């Protein structure tokens, strides 16, 4: 056991939780943006097919966009 500081297993578990938080933040931000873009009419008891595809496309395009931007940025 490491006597000089913190339990390394604990640190590893905490790192895993940090990754989950980051992933959840990305999803939350993206849902916020895509909701605004795609859910423009009134709220029903289910989504229309076009609303579902819009949300799905929005998320996928945004992920591509981020990739694009990163590649562009790294070229400079």
């Amino acid at each position, binding site marked *: 056991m490491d006597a000089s500081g913190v339990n390394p297993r604990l640190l590893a578990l905490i790192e895993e939780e940090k990754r989950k938080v980051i992933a959840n933040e990305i999803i939350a931000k*993206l849902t916020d943006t895509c909701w605004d873009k795609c859910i423009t009419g009134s709220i029903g*008891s289910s989504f229309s097919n076009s609303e579902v595809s819009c949300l799905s496309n929005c998320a996928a395009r945004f992920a591509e966009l981020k990739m694009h931007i990163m590649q562009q940025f790294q070229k400079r």
Partner: protein
Amino acid sequence: MDSFSSSSMSSSGSQQSTEAVMEQIKAQLAQAYAQEFMETLGTKCFAKCVTKPGTSLTGSESSCISRCVERYMEATGIVSRALFSQR
């Protein structure tokens, strides 16, 4: 934070205290997430459902808000699946 490092030094109790600390951390993270989520729901559903605030919420405003909460949770799932099937 003092009790945390001293309990990690006792070899017999360290497994248990790691679990206990993780439970606490997870509970606090879950609470923070829930609060942020509810903030967002409030903003989105107020915008969609309460267009002309009156002296109380009408029946149709209330049902709109319920549907909105359901739809937003569904939207979160759709976005989440779309993102994680990209990798």
